[in-house]
């Protein structure tokens, strides 16, 4: 064990955290099941977006068939921005999935925390109301503008909707926001600030200004004539990401508490690491310094070594620079251990501050089902990405005892989350020592 991992361990004794519920709203569907199916099938969701007509990039990954009125009924959805609609929908699913009922007397409101990440909050509302101010004057500006667009308001509205009275906060680390929310929630649980944490990320940034600004910065794919092929993480011909929207929410509890209430544990969050490049506002450090530090911290907290990692759900945006730097950092740390690597962004596009939470939920499902989803559109590696074992074309069944979810964001933020399979249920026969080729104990043959 290195000095760095020893330091990480001594800083924070590991508190295994159970993931007892997940909820997803993504371009692959509304709900964790539809999203998991779409991601495992490797079906890209990018499509022409009529709402972006006349802008430099006219493709996006939208959540299909999302109607706030039916999805968020009863909560006055007309008052909220779309990013709050997504967060409410995902959070309610996650809470149900965990077998919790906020309306019941058992819901420990004061001991529930809520941490919701978002890169841009209600930027769509902000743009729309600002346009009204400029075009039709101040009398046409909605009084609901601030409660709709302030970035903390998804967290605030979720607290009202679910009756959460413990610590409630918003995390903003750009595209790592959702992962930062989960790491923060794990720390709140470890410090006994709460017993249950509702944590995740949400963003709805497919807006005229955001699309234009990303396009002007050269970050978006220009494969406008062939949208399904546009998002191609780690592929030699990648040319940028496709902007997406969505939300992911996970329910976290200390593993001992989850076991005590016989909660349906999907996986354990056994480690997390956060470190910063301190290098450049938007470009990753060329040596992947912050990312490597975050990876080592997560492994340290999980009491694991690089050789233990079977799978990595990468940040993999599909921009030339991100994927090159990430591939080098992963290869530099894992070397011959060579875990399988995937990026869900080939299917889902880049959901911004939601990505870290959505991909964490997908990593939970990956260890639960012992199935690594493919990277859509990954066909031809180039020198920098050929060092990785990228899962291509079809999902791969493999034994996964430890998987990492990696997130990076503008600002030089890096966060890594470590997941392991849930402990076997009480009364189950001992696991023994499965051979390396045997599927893990949580394999679901139906999936």
């Amino acid at each position, binding site marked *: 064990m290195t000095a760095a991992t020893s330091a990480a361990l001594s800083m924070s004794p590991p508190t295994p955290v159970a993931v007892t519920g997940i909820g997803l709203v993504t371009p692959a569907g509304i709900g964790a099941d539809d999203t998991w199916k779409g991601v495992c099938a490797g079906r890209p969701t990018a499509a022409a977006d009529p709402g972006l007509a006349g802008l430099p990039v006219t493709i996006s990954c939208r959540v299909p068939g999302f109607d706030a009125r039916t999805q968020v009924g009863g909560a006055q959805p007309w008052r909220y921005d779309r990013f709050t609609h997504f967060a409410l929908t995902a959070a309610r699913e996650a809470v149900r999935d965990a077998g919790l009922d906020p309306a019941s007397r058992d819901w420990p409101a004061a001991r529930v925390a809520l941490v919701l990440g978002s890169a841009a909050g209600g930027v769509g509302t902000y743009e729309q109301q600002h346009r009204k101010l400029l075009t039709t004057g101040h009398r*046409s500006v909605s*009084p609901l503008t601030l*409660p709709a667009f302030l970035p903390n308001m998804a967290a605030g509205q979720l607290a009202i909707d679910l009756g959460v009275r413990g610590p409630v906060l918003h995390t903003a680390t750009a595209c790592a926001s959702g992962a930062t929310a989960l790491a923060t929630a794990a720390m709140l649980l470890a410090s006994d600030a709460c017993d249950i944490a509702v944590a995740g990320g949400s963003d709805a940034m497919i807006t005229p200004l955001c699309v234009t600004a990303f396009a002007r910065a050269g970050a978006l794919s220009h494969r406008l004539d062939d949208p399904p092929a546009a998002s191609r993480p780690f592929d030699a011909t990648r040319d940028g990401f496709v902007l997406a929207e969505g939300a992911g929410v996970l329910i976290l509890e200390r593993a001992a508490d989850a076991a005590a209430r016989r909660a349906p544990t999907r996986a354990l969050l056994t480690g997390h690491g956060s470190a910063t490049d301190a290098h450049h506002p938007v470009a990753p450090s060329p040596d992947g310094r912050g990312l490597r530090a975050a990876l080592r911290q997560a492994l340290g907290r999980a009491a694991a070594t690089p050789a233990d990692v079977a799978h990595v759900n990468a940040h993999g945006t599909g921009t030339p620079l991100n994927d090159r730097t990430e591939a080098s950092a992963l290869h530099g740390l894992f070397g011959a251990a060579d875990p399988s690597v995937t990026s869900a962004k080939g299917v889902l596009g880049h959901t911004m501050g939601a990505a870290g939470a959505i991909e964490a939920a997908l990593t939970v499902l990956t260890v639960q089902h012992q199935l690594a989803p493919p990277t859509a559109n990954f066909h031809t590696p180039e020198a920098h990405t050929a060092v990785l074992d990228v899962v291509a074309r079809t999902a791969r069944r493999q034994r996964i005892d430890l998987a990492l979810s990696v997130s990076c964001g503008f600002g030089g933020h890096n966060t890594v989350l470590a997941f392991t399979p849930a402990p076997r249920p009480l009364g189950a026969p001992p696991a023994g020592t499965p051979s390396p080729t045997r599927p893990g104990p949580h394999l679901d043959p139906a999936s």
Partner: protein
Amino acid sequence: MDDVLQHLVTLLTDKFDVPADAILPDSTLTDMDLDSLAVVEFAVTLQELWHIDLDDDAAADITLDDLAKTVRGLLSEQSGTAAP
């Protein structure tokens, strides 16, 4: 029900999600669970739709019938603009 009242009812059900059975001639916007921000939003919406300046301070606690009367008055004050 005249056109103005019908439009107000449609606005309350479609935009503000007020249940149809809560909309009565003698209910106020406050009775229909519109808080102060929602009442201002209601006034802004009428401003956008019909270009009338409804006083939101006065709008919250008058009955729907009186509200329709007020809106009718504001519409007829507008020269050259037909009622919706």
